[in-house]
């Protein structure tokens, strides 16, 4: 059983290997939960079919033969595994946070989710993006496939600006219906432009979840001293005195969050706001709550 202390971001992120990180978190999340002893493919019996020569013998229902002396084949309906697209924002704005950067926190969430979905035999794909799609790993149900995801996550660095709407537009062209799309980003972009592609994906019967990663500093602007702040994405630099503008800033930022929540709700998108000071178990409880 994992001590919850280990699930604190600053502790977990000290582990460089994403795989181990993810496994630790998964272990931590599911520790204490009773697991079933039965393992294997979940197949559902639907009907019997008269055996014709040449058909596989192992599917013959011998019990029915014993009763009826006729050969029938068992017919199963195959359970279709869910295709999960995890979209990770790797724009420059994600490279922020002390001691835990948003990108590191987000990568850990991606890795953990990948592991969880893989264990459920769901096929997980990863899309990293900034102003365009950077990496596209389609979801494939394959053993240890998530290692590919890990390696991408390990090497991927933040760059460029964010343009989620453009990315979603491109993605909608590349994917089919009924996917589970998880977007992990700080969503520091224009909300209005985001709504249209989101609605489009929703209408394609995709289930969408937005995980909003923010630092406490971004929400509260707690620092004291006046300083020059430069925009990580645009490079623009301005002089800021947090003390004098804190109240106004918080008000604006809360309005932004409210708008975001309201818009996602309209588009039937699940929304989770997670700050980087949250322990991972709590973050996942938040995500899995819905």
């Amino acid at each position, binding site marked *: 059983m994992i001590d919850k202390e280990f699930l604190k971001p600053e502790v977990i992120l000290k582990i460089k290997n994403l795989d181990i990180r993810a496994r630790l978190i998964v272990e931590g999340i599911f520790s204490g939960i009773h697991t079933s002893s039965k393992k294997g493919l979940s197949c559902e019996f639907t009907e019997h079919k008269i055996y014709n020569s040449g058909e596989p013998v192992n599917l013959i229902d011998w019990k029915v033969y014993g009763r009826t002396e006729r050969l029938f084949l068992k017919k199963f309906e195959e359970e279709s595994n869910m295709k999960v697209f995890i979209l990770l924002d790797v724009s420059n704005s994600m490279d922020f946070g002390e001691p835990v950067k948003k990108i590191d926190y987000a990568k850990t969430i991606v890795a953990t989710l990948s592991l969880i979905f893989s264990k459920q035999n769901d096929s997980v794909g990863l899309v990293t993006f900034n102003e365009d799609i950077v990496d596209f790993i389609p979801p494939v149900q394959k053993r240890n496939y998530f290692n590919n995801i890990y390696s991408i996550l390990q090497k991927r660095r933040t760059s460029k600006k964010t343009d989620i709407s453009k990315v979603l537009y491109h993605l909608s062209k590349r994917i089919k219906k009924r996917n589970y799309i998880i977007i992990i980003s700080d969503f520091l972009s224009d909300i209005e432009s985001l709504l249209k592609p989101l609605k489009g994906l929703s209408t394609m019967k995709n289930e969408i979840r937005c995980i909003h990663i923010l630092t406490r500093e971004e929400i509260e602007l707690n620092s004291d001293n006046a300083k*020059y702040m430069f*925009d*990580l*994405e645009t490079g623009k630099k*301005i002089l800021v*005195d947090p003390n004098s503008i804190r109240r106004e800033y918080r008000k604006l930022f809360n309005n932004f969050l409210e708008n975001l929540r309201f818009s996602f709700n309209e588009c039937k998108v699940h929304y989770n706001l997670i700050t980087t000071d949250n322990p991972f178990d709590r973050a996942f409880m938040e995500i899995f709550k819905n």
Partner: protein
Amino acid sequence: MIYRIFLYFPLFIIIPILIHLLSRRKIKNEPFPSLLFLIERERKLRNYIKFEEILLFLTRCLMIIVLALAGGLVFIPFKFILKGEMKKIYDTSLSTMGRIGKYKYETVNINGIADFEKTFEKYKYGIIVSDMQEINFRSILKKGKRYRYFIPEILDISEENNSMRDILYSFDGNNLKLYIKINRTGKSKNELLKISFDGNEFNKFVELREGDNIVEIMIKDVKDGYHRVLCNLKDDLIFDNEFYKVIYKGKREIKILSDEEPVFLLKALKMRYNPVWINNPDNLKKGDFLIIENVKKNLNLDYISRFCSSIIVSVNDSMMMKDILIKKVKPEFGFIEDDRFFISTEEPLIKEYEIKGGERILNFKDGKSAIVRKNNVFLTSFSLESKELVYHSYYIPFLYSFIERSFTDLLLNLETGDSIIGDFKRIETPQGMSYENIKIFHFDKIGFYRIFKGNDTIFVAVNINKEERNMKILGKDKIDYIFGKIKFYDGTGFFLFIFLILLICEKLLERR
């Protein structure tokens, strides 16, 4: 100890300037995900930060200045600091009467002597309104004390005044001609001269010009005998008061006395002394006996005392007059107690004296001591050389009592015709009294004398020189010496407090 050299500290103002110029407040560069919510405030903030920079710089400069001021024992003009607490302290001693020019104020109490040491003990700071008579400050000058928290506001001596200087007379048959010499300071003015002759009063307007004026008054048909002549000039100087003219027709020695009730005249005559009234001490002959009696309390005793300082019996160095020994002694101190008229004559008289709560304690070598109380003890320096004790010339009325007593004693023990008595003159008064006039001994030398009769020491006498008689206002150097030149409140505490406030401000600004 704090030194004035600290005042050079403001030179170090260059330090914060250099710090400000060379090491301006470093503003960190920090990344931020999005400036979307900050950008609106940017311009306002930039100006604000600049303003803060200037404020911080000024605060640092001020800190240096204030610290230097605190360390440099800089004084703040205490009128500014103690605005509500400043007291105006009026010198209500007698000397201020008649010396008040434009500063006319009502005195609450007319006390004999201005005791400035006591005043300075009582009040910490204030404005001293006084005529600054040197005589009042002599002990302070002697001790070299400084009262830097007092501002002297020197009363002007009246610019305009009249003073009756002399009255001469001549006879024209039975007519008496009075020549009244009046000195005027200031512009010409018509004044009312009030003359009383044997109770008959009449007034005369006289025009007084600047300088000496001679006013002639003719009194017709003056009969032989004593007559009262009273001249009164309504004047700023109240000294110029009533006086008598005693006329003894046919005699050359006619004296003018200064009192309505000539008690002392009678006494002096009884004692066979030749009493003199004179209004100019310079004209007083040594050995004359000056009498000014019944001085009213509201008179300018100070001014009068200029003349009364000459009131002392003068005697020869040493001589025997029957059983009375008159002996010149060394300059020393005398001590007289008012209510018992006691005269101490032990020699040397004073071992030491000290001040305790405004009282003076005299210790004599014989172990006796006496407390000199302000109002009923006369304390005078009998030494011309010594300035150990303050000579207060205000106690003239008391001095008369003293003289009266002394001579009464003498009179009781002397027989008529004793060796000290000279020519006899019999004087008839209109009241029918007759007195013998005696020739006066003239003791020309200034000094100290004792008069012994048997085992009793009766009198100590001195002629005080002219310098001693004249009242003097403190010179500027002496005023500076007593009060100091700078009239400021010690601002060390104040500046340290300001420094503390600035330090807090600086820290707050620095933190931002």
